[in-house]
């Protein structure tokens, strides 16, 4: 009986494969197939009319090395990194307070974090435009307070893009850290206080190290989509600061109309994700006890 159990664990039988089939079909249809199509496109060529001719050409990848695109990649990574950093600084204390709040308050506060998701993402972004534009709410308030004499140039600047990105992705930083922090044994915090550790040092020495898995998950959930974001850069950056997402979008549905090149960009971009993910996982694994 025992022996049968262990052998079943080693080599899945037909029943196990049968149970796995729906998952495998799902993965095949929605993960493997699209990725394969993308890779196939990335090696294809485009004729003058924009039609795609399949083949094996590395030309698309070669074009990525062009300074323009390298700069776009670098800018995307930079913006995403700044966004992630700001989200971490803002999100950590919020997540910690959420985790430490009493049961009643915790549910209400979590609701506040989630409420924005009930509205369309585009509408929320337009709301920011209303706030930041020259004759917008923020400038109106500052003028009314006589804090400024002329309206500030806020919208269509890199700052506006960062504001939009931070706003969009902050919950994705807060929630995983909260998940980790909530599981933290309160006795550990008490033990730290008891041993002479003040609130700030406790946060730095106990809370942060013990919630790193949640933090890494948050970094992943903010950094990765922030790199590829195009709607916010379009709407709030006024297309003046294109990111990699904008360039790819342009190849597929925009004026550039170069699907193979867009596919190559997307593949490189995907590999970048995988690299970031792999690095974070490895760090998390090093930290996490076996």
């Amino acid at each position, binding site marked *: 009986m025992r022996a049968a159990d262990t052998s079943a664990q080693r080599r899945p039988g037909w029943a196990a494969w049968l149970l796995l089939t729906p998952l495998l079909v799902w993965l095949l249809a929605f993960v493997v197939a699209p990725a394969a199509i993308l890779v196939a496109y990335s090696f294809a060529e485009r004729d003058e009319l924009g039609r795609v001719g399949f083949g094996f050409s590395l030309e698309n990848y070669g074009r990525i090395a062009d300074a323009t695109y390298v700069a776009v990649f670098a800018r995307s990574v930079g913006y995403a990194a700044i966004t992630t950093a700001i989200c971490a600084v803002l999100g950590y204390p919020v997540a910690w307070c959420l985790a430490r709040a009493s049961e009643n308050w915790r549910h209400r506060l979590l609701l506040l974090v989630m409420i924005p998701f009930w509205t369309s993402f585009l509408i929320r972004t337009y709301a920011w435009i209303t706030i930041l534009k020259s004759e917008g709410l923020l400038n109106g308030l500052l003028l009314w307070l006589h804090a400024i004499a002329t309206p500030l140039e806020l919208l269509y600047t890199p700052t506006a893009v960062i504001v939009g990105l931070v706003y969009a992705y902050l919950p994705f930083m807060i929630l995983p850290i909260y998940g980790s922090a909530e599981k933290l044994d309160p*006795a550990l915090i008490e033990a730290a206080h008891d*041993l002479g550790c003040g609130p700030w040092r406790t946060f730095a020495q106990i809370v942060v190290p013990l919630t790193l898995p949640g933090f890494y998950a948050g970094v992943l959930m903010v950094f990765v989509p922030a790199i590829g974001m195009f709607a916010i850069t379009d709407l709030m950056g006024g297309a003046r600061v294109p990111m990699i997402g904008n360039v790819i979008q342009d190849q597929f549905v925009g004026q550039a109309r170069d699907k193979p090149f867009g596919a190559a960009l997307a593949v490189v971009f995907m590999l970048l994700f995988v690299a970031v993910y792999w690095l974070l996982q490895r760090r998390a694994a090093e930290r996490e006890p076996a």
Partner: protein
Amino acid sequence: MSAPSPAVELRHVSKRFGAVAAVEGVSLAVRAGEFLTLLGPSGCGKTTLLRMIAGFEIPDAGAVLLGGADVTALPPHRRDVNQVFQSYALFPHLNVRENIAFGLRMQRRAAKEIAARVGEMVALVALEGCEERKPHQLSGGQRQRVALARALAPRPAVLLLDEPLSALDARLRQTMQLELKRLQRQVGTTFVFVTHDQEEALTISDRIALVNRGRIEQIGTTQEIYHKPATAFAAEFIGQANVMEAEWVGNEPGFARLRVAGIELRVAAEAWPAGVTRARVSIRPEKIHLGKTRPLGGSGFEVRVDEEIFKGATDRFGLVTASGARLIAMVANESALREAIHAGDRVWCAVHADDIVVLRESGNERGQPA
């Protein structure tokens, strides 16, 4: 010359959690260097008392003093007390050495001094060779020792221990009780220990404060608590006791005569509160001496043996008096030759006047404790 300040003093502290009064007007003084146990059933408020000393709970009323200084408003990290937590609360991301060094690092001691002190603590709790291990790589007993070493390393004035042995198995628990007592003598630190286990409390404490329903029922040395329980709760919570209603029937030189379960017994005159006609008394089962013949002096009474339970070192007898009251008696099995007493026998009981303890009613009794 004034007496030295107690290591810990609670002055009329009270604490409510919502509608529940966890602690009600407790005053307590812990002497420097003693091993004091807060003993009581779960939910009696003993842990709340400990947490008030540590600073994790702020009393609603009253004051907490450490070494004579009022610390009621001080947060835990500014109090010179350390705690051993029930769950140990070892920092999972730090190894044994770093856990023990934590409190010293917070005091910003020199690296050399920290290393020396950590080495000293590791030796004290016999964990040599485990310094680099993480808590999850240790056994329950080893974690317990790390928790102890971590709390003692910064040389606190008072060490608080919140049921630290409750997670260990029975054998290890007994070993650790003795080890803890030895350790306390060795380091000389004041220990305030919380437990619900009366045997454990008797084994390791110098003094016991018996806590019930948010108040201190009795405080005294282990002997005092056992031999002179103040209330029915004290008598029944620690060891076993025959607690019975007694009626005063008269005085005679040096003694008060009582009627207990239809039997006339005598207690020392000063043991009976003047002017009281009814009170409860407690007799420990081992203080009831059984014999086949009427004892000398005429103070004995006859009972029927209802049941007999062999417990190895002792025999436990269930007795029924002439009036139908039930008693238990415990007899040491000193010799196999002792005259055998069996269920159904009629035997004589003798109780020494000093072994009948007159109880006062608990201050806050709301029905009998279970």
